[in-house]
């Protein structure tokens, strides 16, 4: 049976393979490089595209199963793209006691999405994080890499506008 691939498919496959090779060459191919490789992929794409994970394994010292096992173990890694402004709401102890749950609810209402979800316009996605270490400003969230503290569930719109301009 002959399987005919069109030119663009072939081109995409080659590009994927070239990117995988580039990543492995830049980071390293050893088994201990599994996490740094995943981090590099996520830095480039914002998430882990499965095709790229498979392609990477052809150039590195670990199997697909091993890499997937590592990727699913650590909460930093995602298999779905995030919004342009990823929001991480801190639900650590100080934030919990300071009312993080109310902030999270209000944020989901405000953006009409849920934890783990992305807004319809792709602008924001909401995740939770166990603690970002800005406990004295609780409740806190990170928008992109910017921390916003002293959140008030009623003033979230203002806080969002300020950081995502």
């Amino acid at each position, binding site marked *: 049976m002959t399987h005919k691939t069109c030119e663009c498919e072939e081109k995409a496959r080659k590009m994927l393979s070239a990117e995988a090779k580039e990543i492995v060459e830049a980071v390293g191919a050893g088994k201990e490089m599994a996490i740094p490789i995943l981090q590099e992929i996520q830095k480039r794409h914002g998430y882990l595209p499965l095709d790229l994970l498979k392609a990477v394994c052809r150039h590195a010292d670990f199997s697909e199963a091993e890499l997937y096992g590592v990727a699913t173990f*650590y*909460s*930093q890694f995602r298999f779905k793209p995030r919004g342009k402004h990823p929001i991480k709401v801190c639900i650590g*102890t100080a934030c919990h006691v*300071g009312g993080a749950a109310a902030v999270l609810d*209000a944020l989901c209402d405000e953006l009409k999405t849920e934890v783990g979800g992305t807004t319809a316009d792709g602008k924001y996605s909401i995740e939770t994080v166990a603690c970002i270490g800005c406990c004295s400003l609780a409740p806190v969230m990170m928008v992109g890499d910017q921390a916003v503290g002293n959140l008030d569930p009623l003033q979230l719109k203002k806080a969002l506008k300020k950081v995502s301009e």
Partner: protein
Amino acid sequence: MTNVIPEDKQRIIVGLGSCGIAAGAKHIHEFFSRQIEERAIASSVELDITSCAGMCYAEPLVEVVDGDGSRTLYGSVDEQVALRILQEHVLGGKPVDAAVLDAHAADTDTHRFLSRQKKIVLRNCGVINPESIDESIAAGGYSALKKALAMKPAEVIEAVLTSGLRGRGGAGFPTGRKWQLVAQNPGKGEAKTKYIVCNADEGDPGAFMDRSTLEGDPHSVIEGMIICAHATGATDGYIYCRAEYPLAVRRLQIAIKQAKEKGFLGKDILGSGLNFKIKVKEGAGAFVCGEETALMQSIEGRRGMPTKRPPYPAVSGLWGCPTNINNVETFANIPWIVMHGGEAYAAIGTEKSKGTKVFALAGKVKRGGLVEVPMGITIRDIVEQIGGGSNTGRALKAVQMGGPSGGCIPASLFDTRVDYDEVTKTGAIMGSGGMLVMDETTCMVDVARFFLNFTQNESCGKCTFCRIGTKRLLEILTRITQGHGKIEDIDELDALARSINKGSLCGLGQTAPNPVLTTLKYFREEYVEHIEKKKCRAGVCKALIKYTVTDKCTGCTACARVCPTQAITGQRKQRHAINQAACIKCGRCYLRCNFNAIVIE
């Protein structure tokens, strides 16, 4: 303190730690930078950065150093205050008294916050620019390394043993003994490989001591590691840092590069023949990786699952080589100990807990921040004197120490001394240094549920008791907070908690029940109340509370406008009412009301 900057120049130093940045310090830094450029005063005024000075409650912090070396610290600086500092102090020569934080004047918040502290680990935090090795050296950095390299390895270990330093990650194992074990081991293979790992995977929610140390003075940690390499004969070092701390990672990388350039890292360090290099490994968001065997699995590129001990890492650690693992704070103590001698360190603290401990003080307290106190101080001193007591005026109920592995110490035991053994007696643990203050509005059952939710999520799944046991504990706690608890549940919680402790391999599982056990021990009546009276006295558990409008209501309609379910009805200028069937208890009306007319029952 620093002699790097020419003496006739004035310096404006902005505190750019993570919490400072979150409070708006970056904005203030940009403001000064713009002003200095616009006013063309760069030849006489230098803008510099530092990191967390520990006074999180007064962020953003700005310090002005005048030509004669005198330093003036300003707190809660916004753009208006920044402009005044520039005009009145920097250009006019007269400090802006209203915003000054004076540590020397008695009866000021700053004095109360600082006077009981003893800074060893945080000696340079908030003082030097953490991105400049020259400032670090001017402040005494790497002089301990030079001293240590002139000593025999055994002498260095002896000094650490004498100091009585115990592991600051929480378990409190004597650091000198750990070093001794690694030093005695010849190392693996012909290369005699041994490793040093700095555990910077600070995962406890509510703890930020290590982050601040790494952001504020990365060189002290690096110096501590190099001294350890000399003492133990290790050749390679790793710093395993939490991924949620991007600034700490960046500053570490800058510091390592600078240390290499100065010859403190690499081959034949300072001509001593010592070879040592350090790599930074970023974690990927797994709490269990703070456990040493899981951490090593993670460095090796695997799923971070703990392994059986023995063999201990000192015998067989990373890739089967002898490995010394210490926490960030432990390493940061080392240069001070080498410089001042073990006896000087041992002179601070109690009989079995020596030196100082850094705490991340947060929660319902007036002055939250990073505090370093001598061991032996009471919890009351930390909470009431340094922290200034409750920030709401409500009575304090407990402090939570040690995060998810620790427990709640009730206000009646606030005279407990900060000492590994004394704290353990209460059922909590010293832990890595999280200290969260709780008042009457904190529900202890909810706190236990919160921590169990955390540990349940973070359990790696290897041990049945941890994997399933924490899930069952969480189910019971959730049931109680939802008003479906049975009185037998209390005994079941207790029995299950003890089984999980016995049946788990690593510290995560063994200590996961601590929040349940301590709240049961000290706040059993709250559990009983939730179960029998269906009442949450703190007003936290949604299923057990009800928001109602009292006759203080002026009919301003503000509450109705923020209600997401339109549960609030009422005419303008008339008392409103909440439809309990539609109310989802989000609490937004309660927060919104300007007249305290909405109450929680």
